[in-house]
């Protein structure tokens, strides 16, 4: 029924099967919609957030998806600014994933601020010394950049492409994409950094506080590095999942190899700096605040094991795999390393957000625990459902992978 809308020369499943595939994701979206509606109508009392946990599950998801969405800006930078032509075969997927991550995160923030009708306050009453203001400005602007990057791909839809005006506009937008990608890189660089800087300047919480360079704590640079290490890995994972589900080869191996290699280098540099930062924190920041390293892990479920998992299992191991050409060329190892890398960055954001707020600071303090409500889980899960719906629609109706027809010729 929808065959006139499908890209030319590709095979897609029937519309009925496609709708059946969308059904569970739409159900998750409906759950999220109900939860969001409750939060907007009744207020944030629907959540387990409190004065202690003003940042909670939603911010973990936010920071997680924003780090994973960094594949868009970094792949865009490599493709359009550095000129790595082989990445043109994966850049569309990276842009869509970035768009999903950033628009999902922005929508979730709309619920998180409690009164979205006053969301514009942060722009109008801008406190320019606040890392959070820089984050808000840059994320909003970068979402605009992602929309501009996404539009030419939407205009390549078979039906839309037949409209002469849209066809020419799409191609003219392609011509200015290099400058837009460079601007997106600048915006993304600063908000990824400021998200980290936000925790590094929490001087009253030695678990997160760090020293740094000029106005930027070391976490500023570590968050940028971890995002550009994990973002391309998430793009690889999403593309591999699409290949698995569609049972087709969609992207040439050289694009995967290049992204994996760059990701490996970035992760290795990040790991060296992260270990140095952790040692500086253990022997510098904590003693200066009158605390010992183990004081942070006195109570609660968060222990030294988190440091071990984050640095060794989800950091050093994937870095070694991605740095070894022979190993990363094997699909199983590549997917395993990408999974570990992405898990590591999410764990890192969880530690900085939840553990920072949970661990006691003063001698008379106690450990604070927090468990999200079903409404919080609903809104967070909706971002995943939304991602699957948008990516599925894009894959079905847009020429996301330029080499798809070449790799999978339709014989009929």
């Amino acid at each position: 029924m929808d065959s006139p809308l499908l890209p030319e020369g590709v095979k897609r499943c029937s519309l009925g099967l496609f709708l059946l595939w969308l059904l569970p994701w739409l159900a998750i979206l409906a759950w999220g919609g109900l939860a969001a509606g409750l939060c907007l109508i009744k207020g944030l009392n629907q959540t387990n957030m409190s004065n202690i946990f003003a940042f909670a599950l939603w911010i973990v998801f936010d920071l997680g998806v924003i780090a994973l969405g960094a594949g868009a800006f970094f792949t865009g930078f490599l493709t359009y600014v550095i000129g790595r032509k082989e990445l043109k075969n994966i850049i569309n997927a990276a842009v869509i994933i970035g768009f999903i991550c950033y628009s999902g995160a922005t929508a979730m923030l709309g619920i998180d601020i409690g009164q979205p009708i006053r969301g514009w306050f942060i722009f109008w009453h801008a406190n320019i010394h606040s890392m959070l203001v820089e984050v808000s400005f840059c994320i909003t602007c970068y979402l605009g950049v992602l929309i501009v990057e996404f539009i030419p791909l939407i205009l390549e839809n078979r039906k839309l492409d037949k409209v002469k005006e849209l066809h020419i506009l799409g191609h003219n937008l392609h011509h200015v994409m290099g400058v837009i990608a460079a601007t997106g890189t600048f915006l993304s660089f600063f908000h990824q950094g400021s998200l980290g800087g936000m925790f590094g300047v929490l001087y009253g919480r030695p678990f997160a506080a760090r020293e740094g360079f000029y106005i930027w704590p070391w976490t500023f640079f570590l968050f940028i590095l971890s995002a550009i290490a994990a973002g391309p890995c998430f793009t690889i994972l999403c593309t591999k999942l699409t290949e698995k589900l569609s049972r087709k080869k969609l992207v040439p191996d050289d694009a995967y190899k290049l992204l994996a290699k760059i990701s490996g280098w970035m992760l290795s540099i990040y790991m060296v700096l992260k270990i140095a930062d952790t040692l500086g924190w253990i022997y510098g920041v904590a003693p200066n605040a009158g605390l010992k390293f183990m004081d942070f892990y006195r109570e609660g479920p968060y222990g030294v094991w988190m440091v071990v998992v984050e640095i060794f299992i989800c950091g050093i191991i994937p870095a070694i795999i991605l740095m070894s050409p022979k190993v990363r060329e094997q699909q199983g190892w590549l997917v395993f390393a990408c999974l570990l890398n992405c898990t590591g960055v999410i764990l890192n954001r969880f530690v900085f957000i939840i553990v920072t707020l949970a661990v006691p600071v003063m001698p008379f303090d106690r450990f604070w625990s927090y468990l999200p409500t079903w409404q919080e889980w609903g809104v967070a899960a909706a971002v995943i459902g939304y991602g699957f719906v948008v990516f599925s629609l894009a894959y079905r109706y847009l020429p996301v992978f330029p080499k798809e027809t070449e790799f999978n010729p339709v014989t009929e």
Partner: protein
Amino acid sequence: MTPFSFEWVWNVEYIIFFGLLYTALTIVASCVGIAVFKTLIQLFGFIRERHF
């Protein structure tokens, strides 16, 4: 105070922050504007339409 920031103060920090922000926004808006403008003049036949 300017229409673009309610609490605008004439100091270097505000100028750097908003300067960078408006530079980025101007670049993106200009690129989109150029693409739209080129499309219009191609459609109206002022420059030769390129065949893609």
